[in-house]
Each structure stands twice: as C-alpha cells, then as structure tokens.
C-alpha cells in the first residue's frame, strides 16, 4: 500500500504527468521539455495496478494508472477506438460496451474495477465480412448518419434485447409481472441513454425491432 501513501499535493503533481492510459511511448518529452516533465515511470510512485480482462474473446493484462476509465483503457491502451468518447460523463452513451454481457458506460467506470471481467466492444461484435445481425440491420435501415454514436447504439441494443429476453422490466413495461416484449415503446425507453444528434432514432428503432424478429 505504500503507493498510496503520498500527499495530496504529490498526487496532483503526479497526476499532471500521467497519461490517461499507460501509453509509455507518449510520455517521452522532446526538446524544450523542462525538468519536471519526466515520464511518470521515472517518478516510480504512481498508483498503478494490473488488471486481467477478456476483451473480445482475448485475454489481456493491462497495467493501468488506477484512475484510468475503462473507456480510456480501451481507446488509448488497446487502441480499440470503435468505442467513442462523446461527453465523458455518462450522459450520451457513445462509449457503451458490454461488460459480462450487460451494457455499461465505459467512461463512468474504472478499468481496475473489472478484474476478470469479459468485455465486448463493437470490434468484437462483428467484422465487415461477418456482421452481427444488429450491425447488418443498422446498415439496412440507415440507423446512423455521422456514425459517431453508432458503436454505442449497437452495443446498447445488444444489451437491451438481452434484458428483454431475460424479462427485465423497464419504465415502459406496462406490468412488471408480465415478461416484456420487443415493442417500439420498450426500445425507445431502453435506448434512451444513447443520444443520436443526427436524429436517426426512427431507423435505429426499426433496425432493433427487425433484428429481434429474425
């Protein structure tokens, strides 16, 4: 626990030199850097942890600054950039991934909290040659325009359909005692955490409903 026995002031200073992920190559300062800008490895006091994850079916061990969000770990350390950063505060849903099959805003959770977890990102759902049915349905129904929210929408839709299948009620469910069905009202409610500024909502709903019927 010695790594945590540092003062608040040190903590701030150290934080200032930390990259959001553990990308060592970025930390090399070039000409013009002053003496305080040593790479944090040289400081040697950062509270880092190793975390083992299964990401898109592959086991990985990451060494992360403890403050690293799952989103930054995915994007900056693993270069899985399909998962997007829209607001970085859990309001837009662009960073949605599947954690042990459940959807989660990757910007609102730390990587170190998920030792042993299995994570599926958009890259793990399908490939251009072998699209996940939801991915194919989004193409068919034009369920996007600019595409920035799309990976989050698709991951969220996978989770939403799974919740309905497991009988998890939503605010839109008329009777919690009755297993919810895939209806437009259910999809609209369950997808309400994923914003699409282009307003492709009607097409996204159509894509999700069609996938569930297949």
């Amino acid at each position, binding site marked *: 626990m010695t790594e945590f026995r540092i003062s608040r002031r040190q903590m701030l200073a*150290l934080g*200032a*030199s*930390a*990259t*959001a992920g553990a990308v060592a*190559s970025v*930390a*090399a*300062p*070039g000409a*013009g*850097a*002053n003496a*305080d*800008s040593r*790479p944090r490895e040289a400081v040697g006091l950062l509270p880092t942890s190793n975390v083992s994850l299964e990401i898109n079916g592959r086991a990985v061990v990451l060494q992360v600054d403890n403050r690293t969000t799952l989103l930054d770990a995915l*994007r900056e350390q693993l*270069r*899985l*950039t*399909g998962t997007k*950063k*829209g*607001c*970085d*505060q859990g*309001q*837009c849903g662009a960073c949605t991934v599947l954690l042990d099959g459940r959807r989660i805003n990757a910007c609102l959770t730390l990587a170190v909290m998920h030792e042993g977890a299995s994570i599926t990102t*958009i*890259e793990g759902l*399908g*490939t*251009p040659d072998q*699209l996940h049915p939801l991915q*194919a349905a*989004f*193409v*068919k129904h*034009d369920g*996007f*325009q*600019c*595409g*920035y929210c*799309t*990976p989050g929408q*698709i991951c969220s839709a996978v989770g939403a359909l799974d919740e309905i299948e497991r009988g998890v009620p939503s605010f839109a469910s008329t009777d919690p005692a009755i297993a919810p069905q895939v209806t437009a009202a259910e*999809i*609209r*409610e369950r997808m*309400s955490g*994923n*914003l699409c*500024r*282009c*307003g492709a*909502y*009607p097409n996204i*709903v159509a894509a999700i409903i069609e996938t569930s019927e297949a």
Partner: protein
Amino acid sequence: MRSLIDLPARRASSDNVSPAHDSAIGHVTGRASYIDDLSEPSGLLHLAIGLSTRASAGLASLALDAVRRAPGVVEVLTAADIPGHNEVGAVYPGDPLLAEGEVRYAGQALFAVVATSLRAARQAIALASVEYVDRPPSLDPVEAIRQGLTVLPEHVQCRATPAPLDRTGVLADDNGTSEQRHAGPDGNWRQALDAAPHHVEGEQFIGGQEHFYLEGQIALAEPWEDDGLRILTSSQHPSEVQKLVAEVLGLPLHRIVAEVRRMGGGFGGKESQAAALGALAALAAWRTGRAVKFRMPRETDMRFTGKRHPFHNRYRIGFDDDGLIHGAEIELIGDCGHSPDLSEGVVDRAMFHADNAYYLGSARVIGHRAMTHTASNTAFRGFGGPQGMMPIENALDDIARRLGLDPLDVRKRNLYAPGRDETHYGQRIEQHLIQSLVEQLERDSDYRTRRERIRQYNAASPVVKRGLALTPVKFGISFTAAHLNQAGALVRIYTDGSVLANHGGTEMGQGLHTKVCQVVARELGLPLELVRISATRTDKVPNTSPTAASSGADLNAMAAREAALTLRSRLYAFAAKRHALAPDSLALADGELRATTLEGESFRLDWAALVQQAYMARVALFAEGHYSTPKIGYDKRAARGRPFYYFAYGAAVSEVEIDSLSGEYRVVRADILHDVGESLNPAIDLGQVEGGYIQGLGWLTSEELKWNAEGQLTTVNPSTYKIPAFDDAPIDFRVALLEGHPNSEATIYRSKAVGEPPFMLAISAWAALRDAISSIGGYRLNPRLDTPATPERVLFACQAMRESDPAKTSRVAVQAQP
C-alpha cells in the same frame, strides 16, 4: 507480358438507387475513424486552453510561470507567441485566437498549454493566475440594440406596394440611413399596413441552440515537408482552416494542407469555429516541431464555441376578414455574441425567411445584429432561417384565432401562388409547389378529421389537452454570399478501372460522398463500388467553399459530374477512333462500353480493358471539374434581387398532447411531406428529413441554454442541456418525399438540397403546443410561447390562459400574454 494489372472478377452491381452510406460498414463495425481514433504520431503533444471566466474585462495580468513549471508542460502559448495575425474571424475581424488586452466572453481562450499528455495539459491550466479589470457586460440583445451595440449594421428589406410587378418607390437609389429610407419614397408600406382592416402584433423570444455534435471539435497538426504543416481537422470548411492557419503563422497557403475525412456531426458548428482549433494546434506544432492534438472536454467545447443565434422578434401584421395578409412589419434582433463571425449571413437569411411560404403584401423587414458578451454565435442548420420564420408562423395562428378560423385555412390562403409570387426582397417564386404539397399533406395526414376529433377530445378533457398544427417550409437554396456558390472536383481513373474522386465538400454524416460517388458512377456507367472518395484535402481541390447552406451535393456533385463528363468524352473520342465506332453510338453502362461500329455491328468493351487501352494510348485519365451556380445575385444596397437559385419546400403536421397541470407534453404523431426534387438517394434524404425534424424539435422544445448574471454559460454538458433522445421523437412518425416534381432549375439530376429545409418542419410541433394551450381559452386567446417551449414554459402559458377571462379578453387578446 503481364497486363497492366491483374483485374479481379467484377462483382455484382450494387443498388444504385438508394445505396447505403459509403461508410456504413465502417460505422457499424467501429472501423470508420475520426481524428481522435487515428494512430498517433510519435512524440505527439496535447493542447489545452485556459478560458476567461469573465464576460467582459480588461486583462490586467496573466501569470503563467507556474503553468510553465508544471510536470509535462512543453510550451505555453499566449497572443505574444503568434508570428502572424492573432485573428481567426471568418469574414470580418473580431475573433482573436488568444485574448490580447481584454476578454469579450466567458469561455474565451486566454492561453494554451502544450504538454506530453492530455491530463498534464489540462491540469496545468489550473495553475494560471489571471487578473481582470471587470467591465459591465452586454448580455441583453434588446438593450444592446437600444444602446447601438452591434457587431454589424442593420439591414432593411422593404416592399412598398402589394402589386407584385410594381417596383416604384422601392429602395432603388437610396444611400441614406434606414430612418431616412423609411421616410422616403417607400413610405407607402406603412400606409398599406395601417389601412388593413385588422392587425395582430406581438413579440417573441426564440432561444439559441448548442450544436452538440457527438464528436467534439478536434484538430491535429503536424510539421510537414518544407516548413509546412498538415492539419487534420473536424471542419466543414477545410480551406478556411488552411487560410487562417497560414495567416496566424504568416505562411503562404501552399505550405498548409488541411484534411477532413469525416466529422461526427457538424450542423454548422464546424463551419467557421473549427478554425480556432486548427490554428492553435498548428501554432503549437510550429513552435515545438512536434505533432499536436487539440480536443476539448465537452464542457470547454460548449463554453468556447458559439451557438445558434437567439432572436428577439417583433411583428405587426395587417389582414382582412378572410385572414389575407395585406401588410407586415417584422423586426428581427439576432443575438450575435461578441463578434461578427457569420452573423451578416445569419441575420440576412433570417430576413429572407421572414415570409416563410407566404405572400406578405406591403412589407418591411428589418434585421439587427446585437453585440453581447457571449461566445460568437455562428452557423447552425438553417442559418437564421428558422428564427426568421417564427414571427409569421406565430402571427398566422394569432390571425386564425382572432377570426375564429382554422389556422390551416389562414395559412393556405396566404401561401405564395401565381400572381402573388414576389418576395419582399424581389425574388419571384417560379416553381409553385407549396399549395399542392400542403393540400396533399392535409389529405394524407387526415387533418380535418383529426382536427374535429381533437376539438371534441379537448372539450371533454379538462387537464390533458391535444393540439394540432400544419406548417409549411419554403427555404432558399444558395449561399447568400454569392462567391461561395462554386465547387471543384478531381476525378481519377486508375489502370485497373477503379475510380477515385475528390471534391470540395466534407462528409459529416449527410451522405455527401455517397451522392457524389453515385453521380460519378452514373456518368461513367460503373457499379458504385468502383468509385471511391478519399478525404477532403486542400491540396487536391483548392479554394473550397464550406459544406454548408445545404449546398454540398448541389455544388460538388455538379463539379464531379463535369469532371466525369470530361473523362467520358476523352474515352469516347479515343474508343471511336481506335475501334472505328459510330460517334453517336457510344455509351458507358453496366461497366462496359457499348457502341456500333462504322460498319453497323454491335461493339462491346469491358470498362477496365477500355481504360487500359486508353492509358497505353497516352490518354489523360484524370480531370477536374468546376461548377458555379447560375442566375443568382442580390443587391444589398437596394435590398432586392435573386439570392436563391431555387426554393425547397416541405410541410409537416404535428399532433401534441400536453398535461396542462404539469406542462409536460409529447409529440404523439408527425406527418411530413417534403420536396427534394428528383431525389439523388431517397434513403439518405429521408434520414435527413427525419433527423432535421427531430433536431428542430429539440431547438424548439427541450434545448435550453442558460447564462448566469455574470454571462457565464451554465448549461455546459448533456446533463443540463437536453438534446432529443429516443422518446422525444414523434411516437407515430410518417415521413414521405414529394414525388413527381423535379427541380424546375437544372440542378444535379433535378434534385434539391435537403440538409437544412426539414429542420423548420418542427415549427409545426411548436404551433401545435400553442394550439393545445389555446384550447384552454376556447381557441380564442393566443398564448405567448417563447422557445424553447420547455414544460415550464408550457405550464406557465397554460396558467396564463386559465387566469385570463376569455369572455372579457377574446376580442383584444391578440397581443402576447405575459
């Protein structure tokens, strides 16, 4: 001997009518990269900016030593570090890249920190010490106009007589001030207005709108060959990024390359205001000799960049017993923020749309450009047009309720029609679509039956009230700055027959690249997959116009078509000579050349074989194309002319249901009929129409920007600034494109622009909310409903309606309720 290249077997031709977005597979698999997703150059530095916390102040001191000493910091930049101009104003000066001597809004950039990590850069910002000398800020645009605080002069459009052909007395030779003008030969406009049997008047506040592109503003600059710089920018206007970077650094334009592959949404917010990011990243790269990336946290993005202009509008309309408008006086005050930016065009476009789709008779429209100490407001889908349409839509409902008529009947009576076809700025309406379009939508949406049903429902429902409204849209297509109405393209054919195109437009999700590929493929008779568009780059096509004003496909697809036609002509000439073909018989279709030989025999040649033969015969297989929009011109001094090549039309019927005790509401159904001429891609166009309506709905209902008394924006993230979510879209949404009406002008395949016009269809939802509220007063009173019409505003309007006594006020309550 090997052939030039081993050609793969040809794949089946794709759907060339409504092909999916060219990045569709990339988007759904997460492989379509935005700037922040790209592999980072080695030694990449990160930039963050320190913002002013004051709206208006002198900058007494800026102490940055602690910032410079912070861990990871490589460089700290202030205005003094700028080698060229400290100015990134798009059209007029007024937007310093970094503050110099004073600050003009809370959120203005004071200095920039460049560090080895993003976290280091952002944390170092907090170590700065700034001393301000506060000045009283201008925060009220109406008061600003009273005090003469403007970013640019006012503009007046005036028509003295309702006779469409009579131009006497109009501002033909006027050099005077607007006051002199009004007393001058066009003074008749007021007489005609005053002489009308009835009048309504009122005022309204129309709120602004944050763009909230899901991909925040971003730029990445890296040192390039020959002391140059390459800038990857999320910009709708890469040529302007190139120009402003060059000016900031004092370099010639040919040293700077700006490149845009795609944006995660733009909506106008990345038209002028992406330049500051490009320029700061470039300045930092220039100073450090390293690649620099600049992406702001969402909160900084929202404080730093401008928004849709809020407007304060006033109107006075004269009309007769049938609701026919005789005259109109409309005053528009655009809140421009602290600098001109694009406000000349925005307020002009608001004025050009003060008539929306209606003949106003004698009319005077005045537009003011108020200066307030807020971020400089900028382009946003519709570019002032939506704000400009709101007074007349407000007034038409007022008139209908005043006369006890259905608002739709009053609207239909006033639509432009043959004989009543000249706008208040002198442009003649030539394609009369709006009458029949509205009538078709009225039938298709079952308007009359639903109107009756809603009246019955409301009579029996004391709390929940329903409202219905149909509003039309007529939107002018062309940049009002005439020189921007041009585009260039470059098309290359490689020796395997694959085709690469570049053009001046940028892709922000609207499907522009898809449409341009379709056009090139069609002209060369190729399956779509043989045509590809790479990034928009200023070294491929120079001097490009912004992808804005809905004009992306109109301009760039025409330019690409020109280039493709040049190539086609060359290939035809070559093939005719080589194979002795009848010159009139040549056609490129389905990936081959078809012709008749001079002997009258049928001839076919595979596309790739044709290309290879042409190459071996030393035929140039690349060509450029250029297009400029014909017919347009507006004389600003005379306030008359033809600013628009044509108009795009549409109409929407919205039905809403409000809870009059809480103010909460929902849009239960929306029916849209929209005119895109001969659609280039119906699937993409439908998406634009639906998305435009939903985004417009956000502007008018849920998206509320709030500033505190110090001029600081308080709605700086999506937890407090609410864009529409899934459940805000209409529950029952029926959208159709108008068929059988090609553009009367010779646009690309007779299509029409589609980006902005549908945005204003959402005005129907706002009018339906007013309709529902007015049902409380028996449809006799006109509620004032400023926007965004949040549940709070709806509730207050319902309360005001209940507190009024309809029996006493029904004949006089044409003015807005407090």
